[in-house]
């Protein structure tokens, strides 16, 4: 079951690392693993990516993230999960996805955090379009492994 104090969702405002870590903390946690995905500089044929525009099928992406949190909780002894993804414009160098998992011990924190980011990237209904310095744009095709 997803716990009521998990924090899961999509947001158009910047991701707040400090808030997420303090949401994930607690006296039953000995370990917090955090992953932050950052939009990378990219260039091709003399032009540069200046920002990314994230679009989501929001109802489904949120439902997927909640189901992934439940699956992680069945696999590992998790205290709290924070799982947030940006939508809208994200400049190069800014974080687009934030996962925080707190657990009693460190092995399971790393494993659960890795599981969540891998599955979100492969499955969640979120897309990004690269906005180039010449004002052109390209939809990025991921390497999802859909069911």
């Amino acid at each position, binding site marked *: 079951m997803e716990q009521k104090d998990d924090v899961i969702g999509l947001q158009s405002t910047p991701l707040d690392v400090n808030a997420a870590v303090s949401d994930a903390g607690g006296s039953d946690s000995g370990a917090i693993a955090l992953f932050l*995905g950052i939009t990378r500089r990219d260039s091709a044929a003399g032009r540069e990516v200046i920002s990314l525009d*994230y*679009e*989501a*099928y929001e*109802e*489904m*992406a949120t*439902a*997927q993230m909640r189901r992934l949190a439940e699956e992680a909780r069945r696999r590992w002894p998790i205290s709290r999960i924070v799982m947030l*993804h940006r939508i809208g414009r994200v400049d190069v160098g800014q974080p*687009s*996805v934030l996962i925080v998992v707190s657990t009693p011990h460190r092995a399971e924190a790393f494993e659960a955090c890795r599981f969540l*980011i891998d599955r*979100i*990237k*492969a*499955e*969640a*209904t*979120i*897309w*990004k*379009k690269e906005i180039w310095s010449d004002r052109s744009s390209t*939809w*990025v*095709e*991921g*390497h*999802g492994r*859909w*069911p």
Partner: protein
Amino acid sequence: MKVRLRMFAVLRERSGVSEMEIELVDGATVAAAMEEVGRRFGAIAELLPRAVAAVNLCYAKAGDSLHDGDELALIPPVSGG
């Protein structure tokens, strides 16, 4: 029967449609619905073979039957993160 169609990202942009209602024969499969969408929106026909479908917020198989009132979403390869 009526199904709510939703399209995202490159499919939404090239078809010009993000959400609409389509009429399908009762019990039509996901595959039949996607063929119908390809006929209506020629601009995305070539993209549909790389897309998958979701029905009511869960990924669906080509052979799954649709029901009246379902939400059918066409999902191009995801690229979140």
